[in-house]
């Protein structure tokens, strides 16, 4: 009996230590959000570097209104950019994934890694030609150019996720469908598309988050401030010294909000995308 007691006490002790450690680590992880939140809720006259860690005296939404006024065109740009780029790259990726997982043709085993490689390259190494090419087809400096860019460089990851997803769908279904006289594509639309909803959720969340948060393509391709997505506008806002700190922090929160909401609601699917991004199924 005594040993059981000791064991229990030890367990409670180690659990307590574990909780203390986890809470300390959590405090560290939440620190930037805390700073963003308390600063953006202060009014400009309360924003003082000497009191940056203290809570606001009163809740003040003025900085959010000011940030919204400055950044709402850019938030809209980000939606105009992210939604079509996400949907198109997800749809093309689903067809690619189906073809690569279920239809072998000579060379498909070589083509897949060649496509996949595109998601690992440092985008700096294609930036100069990208600008030249987009100028050539008159899409440089436009949201369409940015959408095209995100679709093409999104294809490797969307293809990968769908390929791994469809690999789990039994191949007998295809045989049956082909015997019924279905073509390769009617099989896709009749059998694969209906079961691919969870795959689409993962891919759409992944692409939405990445394209919304992306900065390098956006800052290179859109030079006109009225066309810039939110990440670029936020960086410019933070780079200018005249703008009040509370407005900058409110702007940062606004920029983070759409992807944070998705993460909070659909975190499970976000994690699946995260794990799928490391090549192995």
């Amino acid at each position, binding site marked *: 009996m005594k040993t059981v007691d000791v064991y229990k006490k030890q367990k409670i002790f180690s659990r307590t230590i574990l909780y203390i450690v986890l809470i300390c*680590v959590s405090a560290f992880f939440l620190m930037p959000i805390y700073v963003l939140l308390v600063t953006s809720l202060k009014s400009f006259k309360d924003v003082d570097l000497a009191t940056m860690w203290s809570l606001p005296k009163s809740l003040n939404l003025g900085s959010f209104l000011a940030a919204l006024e400055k950044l709402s065109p850019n938030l809209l740009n980000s939606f105009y950019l992210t939604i079509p780029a996400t949907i198109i790259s997800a749809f093309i990726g689903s067809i690619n994934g189906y073809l690569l997982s279920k239809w072998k043709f000579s060379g498909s085993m070589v083509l897949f890694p060649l496509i996949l490689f595109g998601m690992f390259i440092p985008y700096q190494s294609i930036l100069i030609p990208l600008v030249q090419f987009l100028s050539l087809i008159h899409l440089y400096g436009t949201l369409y150019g940015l959408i095209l860019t995100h679709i093409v460089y999104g294809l490797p990851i969307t293809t990968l996720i769908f390929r791994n997803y469809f690999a789990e769908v039994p191949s007998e279904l295809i045989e049956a469908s082909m015997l019924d006289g279905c073509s390769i594509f009617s099989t896709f639309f009749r059998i694969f598309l209906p079961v691919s909803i969870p795959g689409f959720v993962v891919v759409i969340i992944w692409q939405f988050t990445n394209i919304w948060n992306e900065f390098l393509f956006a800052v290179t391709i859109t030079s006109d401030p009225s066309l810039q997505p939110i990440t670029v506008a936020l960086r410019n806002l933070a780079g200018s010294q005249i703008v009040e700190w509370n407005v900058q922090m409110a702007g940062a929160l606004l920029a983070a909000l759409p992807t944070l909401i998705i993460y909070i609601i659909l975190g499970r699917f976000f994690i699946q995308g995260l794990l799928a991004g490391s090549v192995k199924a």
Partner: protein
Amino acid sequence: MFHFKKESRIAFLSLLPTVIAVFIFVYGFILWTLRVSFSDWIGVMPNYTFAGFSNYSDIFKSERFQIDLWNTLFFTILFLFTCVIGGLLLAIFLDRKLRGGSIFRNIFLFPMAVSFVVTGVAWRWIFNPGMPGSLNGINQLLSNIGLSCLTWGWFTQSNHFMNFHVALISLIIAAAWQLTGYTMAMYLAGLTAIPVEMKEAARMDGASEFQMYRNVILPMLQPITLSVLIILVHISLKIFDLVYTMTGPGPGFATDVPGINMFETTFGGNRYGEGAAISIVMFILVAVVIIPYLINTMKRENI
């Protein structure tokens, strides 16, 4: 897998648009950049006059690019070390099925959903050191809780030891904050896949918790460690947004990285040839890590 002749041709043709797009945008553009890196292109108008290796010798001779390479080396090592150890420990903690474990998991992982630009803005303010006598940000917090011995210049410090610029520490903390959750999620997925019987068998054999992790669990997590390292290395080699928002090149290029150098040289300085050369060096560094990994993964899959 199916081998109908007609269908195979349709499959190939349907894949063709993607293949063409990726071949132009990835392989074509890289060759194009390679061509630019051997050119005299300075200024806004393209100029493809062949210039041999002059851009490469120029960048390797420049102090800035040398600092970039050292910074990348130290940043990569310390960033990887922090993420792997931190992520592994967190995963082991959370694998013990604690009450409220999923809340902790969500807290550790949420930075992955937020843009580097957003976190760069926040961390820039946190690590803003302030003046002696009027401390800001993290320094103020540290001195308030009695740790004023830890207050220092953070990313404004330009000194270095053996080519390690101490200002990088702030960047490493911010980058590890953002990506430790990813490592944790990967390890957690690996730990959940290990059958409970295995842990129990080890415990029955009298292994302590530490021994069990050391001798049973960790060896099984090795493939995950490899994936994690590859993904983190390639993120670290091409990092741009976070550094650009948080510190920029820093005092004396203390926090400069090739990604920023390339961007400023090309689009700020209009020295396209040199910018292309920097990006080709970045490409080679990433390719050396990624290509063997991809070949290896594909081989294992096809067995």
